[in-house]
């Protein structure tokens, strides 16, 4: 029988507001096993924790129940408290009387009654708890960063600088990501390439960093500290280690009509190409969809001109297995497709473009060498209309847009407007917005400069329709402040498309067993306290895969993720989760049901000798759980018909005791 | 107290004292809530103790009937009822029914005899009841020898009582032994059966034997070598029981019910039973 202490937290008025905490403490006093019951304003505070520690010692407690906020919040805290007082941390149970009680109920009687039941349930469980000891597993001192944009680059550099090996896997032929496509950055207007490319070079030259470009992760096995990852290195038909990146082949290749994705299809590249001048790694890649040689076997120009003999048409996809201790997802974002936004005539007129396309048009390395011209006729646009929130904050049109705010559009549109007016003062620039959101250092000043110093017309209003009329675009919008309809002619319309997580994130999340929200952004372990960790141990989040961010935020989050990774890799051993499956060999049938459902392959079998009746020996096949591999899902416990398999910390008897306590 | 007509319905009693005898043996002193002895028993008898919801189990009464104040149970931790009892505190109520079984023939076959008590480990629990009965009715019995052994010094139950009372009783010879050498132990070291042979008792004694099966087996051989006949040796059996009154069938061995016809058997009676105990 346990000696249980119950500690009811007020959480200020968060709990005490709707739950009579004293009544709860009083009621739980008489539950079986309870020898001490107390309540306090903030159990998680230093003083609250001291209270618990003292009670553990004074009342010789063998188990404690804290009625407080969600265990997802403070279970760890109270386990540490218990441990500090000499109690096994797994003798702690939390009754969630805040998130699942006081916050959702208004009636004090009702809230109090439920809190008592929840407390009783936790007590029933603790009565059957047993001290658990965590097993240990080694840590592979190498990190994997998936995604080579600014987020991945920064994370990789920070980890590598701390002395750990890092691999970057990037699907594109070069790292750099979206930032490489940008012209200038807000609010300082420094040149994106000027600040990014040195970092790319740092990555390329860092002895601890290895880049797998033109590659993807296809399988992830294992667990924190011991991931095993299969990377598919796609054939680029160019020997990466030999190619000097001289670019001769990309000039001689006869296949010239390949849409250049780096410039968002606004110009062409060759079938063999280097995405841009500062690409890292700076090696050529053959696009098998367009290469005549690969498609028909007739051509071979690039091979002929290559002085380094780097061309290899027979190259195959390569699969590399590598072990890692930690994985960082940095898969980034994309603007959403504008196809569904027909009212803005994106597909009807070449002169309706997205902001990212505008970014390329303004870029000196872009398709127009930085000259702002209309894609349709190459003429300088006199009147430009920017439309904000295209697909963002789109609660009413969820089927084509996103409910969330894409966060960066207000600022880059201000930047675009400003840059346009700066370079081409004769251009008339109008911005249609719903709200202008500028919460960031120097952001509002930046926006005001655009509106006030640069004479950008900001109109609060929705654009209803854009239709090509002759070589002009007719913009129909409403001016919400003036409360009138506006019909406006424009030469160029720029749509601030919402951003969404990269499509590769969803399958990756499945492989990582990391959870995602409804928008396919990775979920963080805690939105406030653990924003760069995924709930899956050993998986960290960097950049826009977790949610829309601008560059400074991305870089700081990348650094934070790196710090977490470094913290993990710095350990030689990891304490495992002791809540793992365990098979009672006396009851095990050796039927393999558990093995079949185990997602981690943590169960193996062995033939073991048992004493049979009358001094005989029986050999039986029995299951063994590898505790370092088991993650404690408990699937095997239900697959096991004999009940030999149970889960420590969530034992059948414990759960049934909880059921009993609730239903009482 | 216990209405014999309601054999299965227990009385509520209270644990009034708990003594930790060895790391896994505790002795519980039990009285009715109004402070009386729950029942009058014979040495060697048992009683059913239970905690509702945990279970009921049969334990031998370790105190002597001559103790007019209380009854005691010495209980080794093994199984759920005993585990629960070991976690219980003074003041805890439990239910008690009994006494059950035949007990030792202290007033008949033992009377006037030289007694040899041999026990191993927790096996001393039922024997203690007879030893103290004999000590309290000293005139009715001849010489008394006690051989008691355990794994280690720490596993000797009633150690205080043995040292302070039995050893100081000039009419009783106490022979203690432990299985292996241990610091702070200057007594005999070795297993009980060989110690019994070493001590070489007269075969005119009546022996009471209780302990683990392996000890009983070899001690019996030893006693036989010393010239004891089966009619001179008594032992007490422990089987899984539920009702305690010879009805539920669990403790049925041959035509005997251990709870009713036992638990005390003379070795020659036991020999008659099928080997299923």
């Amino acid at each position, binding site marked *: 029988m346990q000696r249980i202490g119950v500690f009811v937290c007020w959480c200020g008025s968060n709990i005490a507001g709707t739950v009579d905490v004293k009544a709860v403490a009083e009621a739980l006093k008489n539950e079986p096993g309870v020898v001490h019951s107390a309540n306090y304003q903030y159990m998680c505070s230093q003083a609250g924790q001291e209270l618990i520690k003292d009670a553990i010692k004074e009342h010789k407690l063998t188990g404690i129940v804290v009625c407080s906020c969600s265990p997802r919040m403070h279970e760890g805290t109270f386990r540490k408290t218990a441990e500090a007082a000499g109690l096994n941390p797994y003798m702690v149970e939390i009754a969630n009387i805040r998130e699942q009680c006081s916050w959702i109920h208004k009636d004090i009687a009702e809230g109090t009654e439920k809190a008592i039941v929840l407390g009783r349930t936790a007590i029933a469980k603790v009565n059957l708890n047993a001290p658990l000891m965590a097993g240990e597993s080694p840590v592979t001192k190498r990190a994997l960063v998936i995604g080579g944009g600014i987020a991945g680059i920064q994370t990789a550099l920070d980890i590598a600088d701390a002395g750990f090996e890092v691999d970057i896997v990037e699907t594109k032929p070069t790292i750099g990501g979206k930032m490489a496509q940008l012209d200038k950055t807000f609010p300082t207007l420094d040149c994106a390439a000027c600040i990014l490319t040195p970092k790319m070079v740092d990555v390329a030259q860092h002895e601890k960093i290895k880049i797998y470009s033109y590659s993807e992760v296809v399988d992830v096995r294992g667990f924190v500290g011991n991931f095993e990852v299969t990377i598919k290195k796609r054939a680029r038909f160019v020997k990466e280690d030999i190619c000097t990146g001289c670019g001769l082949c990309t000039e001689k290749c006869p296949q010239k009509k390949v849409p250049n994705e780096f410039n968002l299809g606004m110009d062409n590249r060759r079938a063999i190409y280097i995405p841009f001048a500062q690409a890292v790694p700076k090696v050529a890649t053959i696009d098998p969809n367009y290469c005549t040689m690969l498609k028909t076997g007739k051509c071979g120009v690039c091979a002929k001109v290559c002085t380094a003999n780097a061309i290899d048409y027979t190259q195959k996809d390569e699969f590399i297995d590598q072990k890692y201790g930690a994985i960082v997802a940095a898969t980034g974002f994309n603007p959403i497709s504008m196809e569904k936004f027909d009212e803005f005539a994106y597909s009807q007129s070449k002169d309706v473009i997205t902001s990212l396309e505008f970014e390329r048009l303004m870029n000196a390395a872009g398709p127009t060498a930085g000259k702002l011209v209309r894609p349709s006729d190459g003429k300088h646009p006199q009147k430009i209309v920017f439309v904000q929130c295209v697909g963002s904050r789109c609660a009413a049109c969820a089927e084509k847009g996103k409910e969330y705010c894409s966060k960066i559009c207000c600022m880059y549109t201000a930047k675009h407007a400003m840059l346009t007016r700066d370079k081409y003062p004769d251009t008339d620039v109008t911005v249609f917005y719903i709200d202008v959101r500028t919460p960031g250092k120097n952001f509002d000043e930046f926006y005001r400069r655009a509106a006030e110093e640069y004479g950008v017309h900001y109109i609060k209003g929705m654009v209803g329709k854009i239709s090509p009329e002759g070589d002009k675009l007719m913009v129909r919008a409403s001016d919400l402040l003036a409360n009138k309809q506006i019909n406006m002619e424009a030469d160029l319309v720029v749509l601030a498309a919402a951003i969404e997580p990269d499509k590769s994130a969803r399958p990756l999340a499945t492989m990582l067993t990391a959870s995602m929200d409804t928008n396919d952004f990775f979920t963080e372990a805690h939105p406030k306290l653990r924003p760069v960790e995924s709930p899956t141990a050993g998986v960290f989040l960097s950049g826009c895969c977790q949610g829309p961010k601008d560059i400074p935020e991305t870089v700081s989050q990348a650094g934070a993720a790196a710090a977490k990774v470094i913290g993990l890799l710095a350990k030689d051993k990891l304490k495992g989760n002791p809540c793992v499956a365990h098979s009672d060999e006396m009851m095990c049938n050796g039927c393999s049901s558990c093995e079949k459902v185990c997602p981690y392959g943590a169960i193996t079998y062995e033939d073991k000798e048992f004493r049979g009746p009358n001094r005989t020996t*029986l050999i039986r096949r029995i299951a063994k759980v590898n505790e370092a591999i088991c993650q404690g899902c408990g699937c095997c416990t239900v*697959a096991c018909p004999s009940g030999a398999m149970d889960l420590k910390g969530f034992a059948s008897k414990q759960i049934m005791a909880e059921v009993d306590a609730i239903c009482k | 107290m216990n209405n014999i007509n309601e054999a299965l319905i227990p009385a509520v009693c209270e644990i009034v004292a708990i003594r930790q005898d060895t790391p896994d043996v505790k002795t519980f002193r039990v009285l009715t809530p109004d402070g009386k002895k729950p029942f009058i028993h014979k040495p060697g008898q048992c009683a059913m103790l239970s905690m509702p919801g945990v279970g009921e189990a049969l334990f031998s009464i370790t105190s002597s009937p001559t103790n007019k104040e209380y009854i005691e149970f010495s209980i080794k931790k093994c199984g759920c009822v005993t585990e629960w009892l070991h976690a219980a505190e003074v003041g805890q109520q439990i239910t008690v029914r009994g006494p059950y079984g035949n007990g030792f023939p202290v007033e008949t076959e033992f009377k006037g005899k030289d007694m040899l008590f041999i026990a191993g480990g927790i096996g001393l629990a039922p024997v203690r009841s007879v030893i103290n009965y004999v000590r309290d009715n000293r005139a009715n019995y001849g010489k008394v020898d006690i051989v008691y052994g355990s794994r280690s010094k720490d596993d000797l139950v009633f150690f205080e009582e043995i040292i302070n009372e039995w050893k100081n009783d000039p009419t009783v010879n106490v022979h203690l032994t432990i299985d292996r050498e241990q610091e702070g132990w200057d007594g005999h070291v070795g297993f009980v059966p060989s110690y019994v042979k070493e001590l070489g008792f007269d075969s005119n004694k009546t022996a009471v034997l209780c302990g683990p099966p392996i000890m009983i087996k070899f001690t019996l051989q030893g006693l036989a070598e010393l010239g004891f006949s089966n009619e001179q040796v008594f032992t007490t059996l422990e089987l899984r029981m539920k009702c305690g009154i010879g009805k539920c069938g669990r403790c049925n061995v041959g035509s005997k019910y251990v709870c009713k016809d036992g638990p005390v058997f003379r070795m020659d009676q036991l020999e008659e039973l099928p080997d299923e105990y």
Partner: protein
Amino acid sequence: MQKINREVLINKANELLSNGTINRVFGWEKGDFSYDVTPTIYFTADQMNKKFIFDDFCGANFSKYLVAETKKDQNKVGVFLKPCDTYSFNQLLTEHRFDKEKVYAIGVPCDGMVDEKKIKAFFGEGISSITSEGDEIIVDTLYDGVKKVKKADVLQERCQNCKSKKHVYYDELIGEDGEVLDSNRFDEVEKLEKMTADERFAFWQNELSKCIRCNACRDVCPACTCEKCVFNNPNSGVENKSPANEFEEKMFHIIRAFHVAGRCTDCGECSRVCPQGIPLHLLNRKFIKDINSFYGNYQAGEQEGSRAPLTNYTKEDLEPSEAVNKGDN
């Protein structure tokens, strides 16, 4: 076709015993009446000559005995297996319950086993002998003289709805192998499904209330080979020994059916042995039927090593809510 009678089987067993292939063989033993055949083990042909029987009442399936028997020594055990027995045999192999190297399986044909309870339902108690002649069963009674009945009418339920006459495992086959059959075994399940929930509840309430928890269904079941059943294990939290009330009757039978779901070969033993005549096979068949319709046809035991539906999944599986509504027509 060679007539398979007891002599053929005794000769086969004798041959295997004397050439050392096996040192004992599971076979049927005749009883005091025509129908009380007991499964037993024979060590010599002589014993077999005295007691072995192979007739319409040899329903007992030896597969489950092999779990314990094969662990006893290193010798091979012989066993006669009817087609449906081989499914149980295979399923046990799939679950690694014994080593097939220690068994010599002799496949024997089966044209259906007779249910003496059905005969008694026709003619009452007082049956002195039962013999079969072609497709007729001749019953000699104490009170009403000799009676005849069509064998098809008094076959065991499982034989009336025989799913397969094909042996899915054997070391040696005696006679010719049959085919997997199209049976109507789900008809009764469908009938129940078509009832209203109230009717179904009443039906099962009535049936399960007969249960005396003798565990015969479980102990005879070739899928129930657990070292220790959860219902016998005080630590499982669901141990219960008696059908203390309606709930516990349901609990036992639901959980038992669930534990064998996907592993049950539909051998029908549970219903055959139930002393209270509860149609337990209708629970197992419901699971089989659901599995077939939700996840595609699956016959437990058909293939050694096949993955049971409950230890498998597809990403497109139907939702529990759909499953419940599917059964509702």
